């Protein structure tokens, strides 16, 4: 068996295993869907009139907040993968993987693939809910693709962040910390209003939060004032790559030092 075929086999096997969680735990995915939908409807209802402000890039606040909810759902789905790793470490399952000859990066690849897959469900359900409530896809196919890339990419980042914490703490108690981190990354950004309308400390902070650019990437799908363009795309891709690389490398380093 060649190295590539072996890597693929291990990755696929661990991916399947991680997905069983969705298939076999009744309602296992509900929290990652329900919370963002409640947030979507509640926020859109509360702050609906913000879109009346001049400089607001769309007349529909729901269209503005929809991509955020998608990222939130995808991020929680990714973070859950990290929390599951913490459980696997605590319960001893991870030892089984560690005593196998599989190259160490592959042990993280399976969960990352699972995070990507898991992210598709909340993203699609939330997007569909928005479309049913009258949001239109102003960005056409390009925008839609950008939204999915942003959501899936953010899930990968959240998964790597979560696995980093899991490998560091080796305890399930780290679960809430993982999800709170995702929560903060999403909300300490241009979550509620565009940068031009931000006031106070967030106006200073949001431009330094990479998630702001991932949001921008995703908003090409439904926000009329953010047109699908490379200029609106590359900062988000760069932010995803940067965050993914950072947490991926830290996670790998922690994994390599795991037996010390």
């Amino acid at each position: 068996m060649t190295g590539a075929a072996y890597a693929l086999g291990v990755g696929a096997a661990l991916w399947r295993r991680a997905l069983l969680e969705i298939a076999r735990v009744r309602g296992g995915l509900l929290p990652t869907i329900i919370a963002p939908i409640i947030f979507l409807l509640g926020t859109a209802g509360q702050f609906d009139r913000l879109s009346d402000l001049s400089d607001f890039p769309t007349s529909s606040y729901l269209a503005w907040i929809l991509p955020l909810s998608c990222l939130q759902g995808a991020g929680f789905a990714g973070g859950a993968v990290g929390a599951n790793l913490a459980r696997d470490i605590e319960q001893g399952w991870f030892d089984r993987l560690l005593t196998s000859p599989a190259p160490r990066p592959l042990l993280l690849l399976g969960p990352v693939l699972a995070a990507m897959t898991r992210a598709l469900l909340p993203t699609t359900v939330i997007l569909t809910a928005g479309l049913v409530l009258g949001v239109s896809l102003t960005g056409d196919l390009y925008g839609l693709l950008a939204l999915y890339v942003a959501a899936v990419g953010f899930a990968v980042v959240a998964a790597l962040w979560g696995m980093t914490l899991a490998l560091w703490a080796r305890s399930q108690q780290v679960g809430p910390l993982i999800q709170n981190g995702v929560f903060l990354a999403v909300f300490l950004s241009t979550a509620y209003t565009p940068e031009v309308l931000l006031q106070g400390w967030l106006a200073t902070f949001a431009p330094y939060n990479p998630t702001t650019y991932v949001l921008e990437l995703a908003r090409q799908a439904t926000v009329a004032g953010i047109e699908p363009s490379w200029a609106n795309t590359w900062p988000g891709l760069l932010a995803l790559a940067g965050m993914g690389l950072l947490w991926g490398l830290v996670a790998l380093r922690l994994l390599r030092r795991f037996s010390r």
Partner: protein
Amino acid sequence: MSSAALERDPAVQARVVTALAGRGLRIQMRRAQFLIPAFLLPLVLLAVIASGTSAAQNLRGFPDTGAYIGFVVAGTLIQGALLGGITAGISTAADIEGGFFDRLLAAPVHRVSLVLGRVGGTAVLGALQACVFLAVAFAFGARYEGGVVGVAEAVLLASLAAAAAAGLAAAIALRTGSLQLLQNLFPFVFVLLFTAPAFFPRALLQPELQAVADVNPLTFVVEGIRAALHDDPALGDPLTGLLAAAGLAIGATALAVWAMRARMRST
């Protein structure tokens, strides 16, 4: 004194309620898993909303409350109360799953005292949370024209709202005994919160949501808090808020007592 007599002695039962309330509060303050949702989460959301949506003040029809954070902090008080209530329900479910509850039942304690202890403890927690949130908001620029009386009214309303949430959550915990279910109820706190004008004036809510807010009792509580803090009748009516909060607290406590009786019958 026989155990039946103990159960009827109001002085004894008052001590029981106080002791149980104290225990509930101590657990609340010692565990990060309860402290984070009760204190940290509302403060983070307050910080994000106060900064992230403050452009709303430029909207026509947005009331003037000085600093924007002074307007939204009322929503934070309600959010804290609801989350505090849920954690009280989680504690109850954990007591049931962990067996501590059976020990309480085996003691000569009136069943109503068990419920009142939990609700009372959470009411105190709600008042504490409100004081913290109002102080933090003050530090970041909020000013309360209602003075000490206004702040006291606001704290009382928040405390009653916490009692109401605790009663409701305890009722669910007593009826189901499921820790998992209670934990999954967290998102629904936001349903109650977002269907009231927690962070935005009722007149400026999305029309469909406004219709829901008109009948959500929490609407009157949050508006009452706002009116009391800023001594501005245009923002709401503290008395209506008090009636709504007290009604909710009494109703939810009654529901918890009923759930307790039902639990006793079924076990």
